[in-house]
């Protein structure tokens, strides 16, 4: 098997370290990275980070793209996806773009145009759909075991992200908890509905748990889909900093045939820490990022566009934008497709 030349653009997202390590350790990948900055003070970034992770780093995006790469992974701040994605596509690279696809309609439209003119594909980094647990639910829904699917309720709760300051800067993140955690469940809904466009969204939220944050840190969202499906998502950063693990993602699907509950990241070895009495949780299970990268790299080899593609990213972004509008106005809003 010939070696794939893969670039990693930006270390802004915490997942960049995971991608760097997974790609570095693959025998079929030659990895080059570039973390152009600007970098927030006190965060391990750029050449220093690359050295710590044992990966090659170049100074500029142009230099990286001049390497004749097969594909690029973009892990920049949410609001900076567009500029790097456009450059990578125009340089002839397939792209794996960290979620959410973008933070605005305009950016998503520009990225769609770049995909179309380049003839390259864009995959959105939604790892949860690659979990076996969710796969069972997907197969049960597709096989009719749930009958008519009526209800899905999901929760994707985590800690206030603090390891990178931009996560809580609405200008760079595109918002708060609504943009960060609605999209994973919206992606799973996209799978379960076969790519249906959401119809209406109501969202409520607050900043009570983190009064100093610049955007909402708690959010509850209710969504209607075609064919009588109603969905609700808790996207709150409601895990305290002292919690033994980062959080998790669960969903329960209900239909005329019954209910199925899925706990992704839910399997843990549990115990207590003797001196404090605090709980200890050791999460275990397959690395979903690895499964997602497998799919991406396989598609780069074959040249056929993988899922979730840009349109999934656009549909899930349309739910986020509607939720943000509903939270802002206090009214239920119709979803405008992106």
């Amino acid at each position, binding site marked *: 098997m010939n070696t794939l030349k893969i670039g990693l653009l930006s270390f802004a997202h915490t997942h960049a370290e995971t991608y760097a390590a997974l790609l570095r350790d693959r025998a079929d990948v030659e990895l080059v990275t570039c973390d152009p900055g600007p970098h927030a003070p006190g965060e391990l970034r750029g050449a220093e980070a690359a050295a710590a992770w044992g990966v090659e780093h170049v100074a500029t995006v142009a230099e990286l793209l001049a390497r004749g790469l097969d594909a690029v992974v973009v892990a920049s701040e949410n609001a900076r996806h567009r500029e790097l994605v456009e450059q990578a596509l125009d340089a002839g690279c397939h792209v794996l773009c960290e979620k959410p696809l973008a933070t605005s309609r305009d950016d998503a439209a520009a990225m769609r145009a770049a995909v179309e003119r380049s003839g390259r594909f864009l995959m959105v980094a939604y790892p949860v759909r690659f979990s076996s647990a969710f796969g069972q639910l997907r197969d049960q829904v597709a096989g009719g075991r749930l009958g008519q699917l009526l*209800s899905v309720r999901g929760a994707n709760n985590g800690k206030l992200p603090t390891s990178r300051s931009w996560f809580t800067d609405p200008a760079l993140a595109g918002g708060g908890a609504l943009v960060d955690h609605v999209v994973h469940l919206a992606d799973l809904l996209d799978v379960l509905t076969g790519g249906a466009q959401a119809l209406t969204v109501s969202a409520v939220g607050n900043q009570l748990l983190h009064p100093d944050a610049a955007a909402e840190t708690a959010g*509850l*969202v209710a969504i209607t889909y075609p064919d009588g*499906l109603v969905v609700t998502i808790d996207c709150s950063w*409601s895990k305290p900093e002292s919690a033994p693990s980062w959080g998790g993602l669960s969903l329960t699907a209900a239909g*005329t045939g019954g209910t199925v509950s899925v706990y992704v990241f839910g399997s843990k070895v549990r115990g207590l820490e003797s001196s404090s009495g605090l709980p200890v949780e050791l999460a275990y299970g397959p690395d979903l990022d690895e499964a997602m990268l497998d799919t991406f790299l396989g598609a780069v080899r074959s040249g056929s566009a993988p899922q979730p593609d840009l349109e999934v990213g656009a549909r899930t972004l349309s739910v986020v934008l509607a939720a943000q509008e509903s939270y802002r106005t206090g009214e239920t809003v119709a979803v405008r497709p992106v």
Partner: protein
Amino acid sequence: MSTTPDARPLRIGLVGAGGIAECHLPHLARLGAEVVVFSEAGAEELVARHGTGRVVGSLDELLDAVDVVDVITPTPTHTAVVTRALEAGKDVICEKPMARTADDAAALADLAERLGRRLYPAHVVRYFPEYAALHAAVARGDLGDLAVLRFTRSGAYPTRTPWFADVEASGGIILDQMVHDIDIATWLAGPVVSVSAVSTHSADGAAEPAAAAHVLLTHAGGAVSQVNGFWGPAHLQFTTSFSVTGTAGSLEHSSAAERAVVTDLAAAGDGAGALVPDTDPLDDPYFLELRELVEALRSAPGDGATPRTPRITAREGAEAVRVANAAIEAARTGTTVHLTEQGARA
């Protein structure tokens, strides 16, 4: 507080003999009540099944024979029955929801107040030990200021009597089932200022009907609540869960995860799901509820006993009905319903 057994006779009239009577009659008997039962159907069978109670042929006859009336008729009849009982000078316990509409529920609370009678809506979930423990923790301040609350309730679609699923009659899943958690959310996080909701139903002709709804509440203090309800196929086990997070901590519970007995046996019986949750007979919430309400009714100020206040009031029952109806309207119109403070908790 006196612990001497109350020597006065306790005469309670049970109006209605449907499914929920199984959760009332035996507990009233255990409290030492002389129970008089009136129902348009099923009264004789109910009394025979439990070996307790005396059946009468009319509501008037019942009202003549008792001091307290326990109303467990279908929701759309609550207003008429409770009004007659209050006007006959009786104190009343009424199954939830207190009435079908917000106006009717408020009118019942007003009427009780005007007549100087007590009216206690039977919101039994306040007596389930896990919800009582949650409320106690919140009241102690263990969780700080509440921020995000989630509640789920899932069980078999009520097919035994048609009025349950008839939205006009019962208010459907939101008023019949989810009013429990709407009440708990309000009990914990205070008055609700806005409501949005989505609801759905299986297609006509489904072999086993199903219904689902999700309700979002914003409380006056800024906390937000999510209430999820599902009525599914007959095999569905009754399960509930909550997850409540505040500035100082969080508490969560899942009835499915906290089962005291886990079995893996060949299927027995018809495997039908239950309409009410499994409860521990030693700590039965329906008994705890009726005991507290009856004790409160028997401790009227001025009669020498220590007056007791139960954990639920008619105003709170009416507020749960108001918020649930706002959710029904939100789901029907696809809009967010903003509530005034007018009906907020006293």
